[in-house]
C-alpha cells in the first residue's frame, strides 16, 4: 500500500519542521487528508503509526490527528465550483488512478456544467502536514 510511502514523507516533513522550530520532542502531528485521493483516515493513522518506529527519536512519542477535507474543484472554463458528488467516474480503475495520482482527475472528471477538464483542485487534493506540536528550546 503506497500510503506507507506518503506517511513516511509526512514524518520527514515533520522532522524538518521540528528542526526549523528548534523542537527536541514532537508531541503531535496534525495531518489533513484530502477526499480526492481516497485515503481513509483510519488507514492513514495506521500508516503513520507503522512508519513511526523507523523515524528520528524526536518523533518517537508523537501522536497523530488526521482530519479530512472535502474536495472542491473550480472550473477554469465557466467558473463553476463543484465537489466529488458532482462528478462521475466510469469504473474503479479511474478511481484507482486518481488514488495514486490525484491529478489524473483531469483525465476522467469533467465540469458538471460545461464539460471541461480544465479545472483547479481548490481543496481536498491529498496529504498535507498542517502543523506539529512539541517542546524544545526553540
Amino acid at each position, binding site marked *: 500500500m503506497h500510503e506507507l510511502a*506518503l506517511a513516511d514523507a509526512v514524518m*520527514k516533513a515533520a522532522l524538518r519542521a521540528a528542526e526549523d522550530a528548534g523542537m527536541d520532542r514532537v508531541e503531535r502531528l496534525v495531518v489533513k487528508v484530502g477526499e480526492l485521493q481516497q485515503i481513509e483516515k483510519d488507514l492513514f493513522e495506521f500508516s503513520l503509526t507503522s512508519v513511526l518506529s523507523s523515524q528520528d527519536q524526536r518523533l518517537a512519542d508523537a501522536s497523530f490527528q488526521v482530519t479530512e477535507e472535502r474536495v472542491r474543484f473550480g472550473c477554469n472554463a465557466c467558473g463553476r465550483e463543484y465537489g466529488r458528488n458532482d462528478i462521475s467516474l466510469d469504473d474503479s480503475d479511474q478511481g484507482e*488512478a486518481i488514488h495514486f495520482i490525484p491529478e*489524473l482527475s483531469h*483525465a476522467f472528471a469533467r465540469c458538471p456544467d460545461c464539460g471541461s477538464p480544465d479545472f483547479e483542485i481548490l481543496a481536498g487534493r491529498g496529504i498535507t*502536514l498542517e502543523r506539529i506540536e512539541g517542546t524544545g528550546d526553540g
Partner: protein
Amino acid sequence: MGDALDPRPFAIEQRLAGVRRVIGVSGSKGGIGKSVIASTLALALADQDRRVGLFDLDFTSPSDHVVLGVDRSFPAEEFGIDPHVAHGIHLMSVAFFAGDAAVPLRGAATTSALLELLAITRWGDLDVLLLDMPPGLGDTSLDVINLLPRLEFLLVGNESRVVIESVRRAAALLTELNVPTVGILENMRRGDGEAIRALAEGVAMPYLAAIPFDSALEAALGDVELLRKTDVYRSLARLAESF
C-alpha cells in the same frame, strides 16, 4: 511551524538514494526524437547489463511505453509503487494509470503529479535513471532542476536552424544555472552535422554522437527485437558504453 507543509518533496532524496546518475534527456522543440532516444538509450544500457530506469515525464503525451512495446497496467503497490520492469528497464509512466484517456494538465497540476510520482516510486538501485523530458524549458524542466540536485542533462538536437536556435538557448540557461550537461546529441542526421558540432563548440559542451536518420525506425517502434537492429540503436549502444 508556519504554513502547512506538502510532505512529498521531503521523500524524494531517499527515493533516489540508490540511483547513481539522473540524466534528463531534453530538447527544446517537440518532434526531435527525445522519447525514441531516451527509450532506446535505456534499452542499450540494459542490454549492457546496466541497471537502468526510465521515467516518462511527458505527462500529457507519454510514449516511452509505445517505443518499448510495454503494456499499460497499474504498477505493483507496496511501500510505494514499483516501476514496471520490461527488457531490463525499470519504467514509470502516467500511461500506466491513465489508460487511453488524454491527460490535460496545466503547469501546477503537472508539478503536483511529478511530486507525487517522485515521492512514491521505488526505483531501487540503479546505475542510471533517464528522464524523458517534455519539450522546452517549462514547468517540468524547472521542477526537476529544483527538486533533483544531482540532475544532469543530455540535450538532443538536429541540424534544423529552428532547433539549433532553441538548443543554444537551453544550453545557455543550463550553464547559467550550473546544471551539468552530458553533452549534445545530434538526432536524425541527414547532412554533415557541422551545424551541431559548431553549436556544441560554441556553448562549450561535448558533441556526443550523431544518430543517422533511419527510415526503418518507425516500423521498429514497439518491437525491441526490431529496435535493436536499427542504426539508432547501434549508435546509442556505442554512446551507452561511455556512461
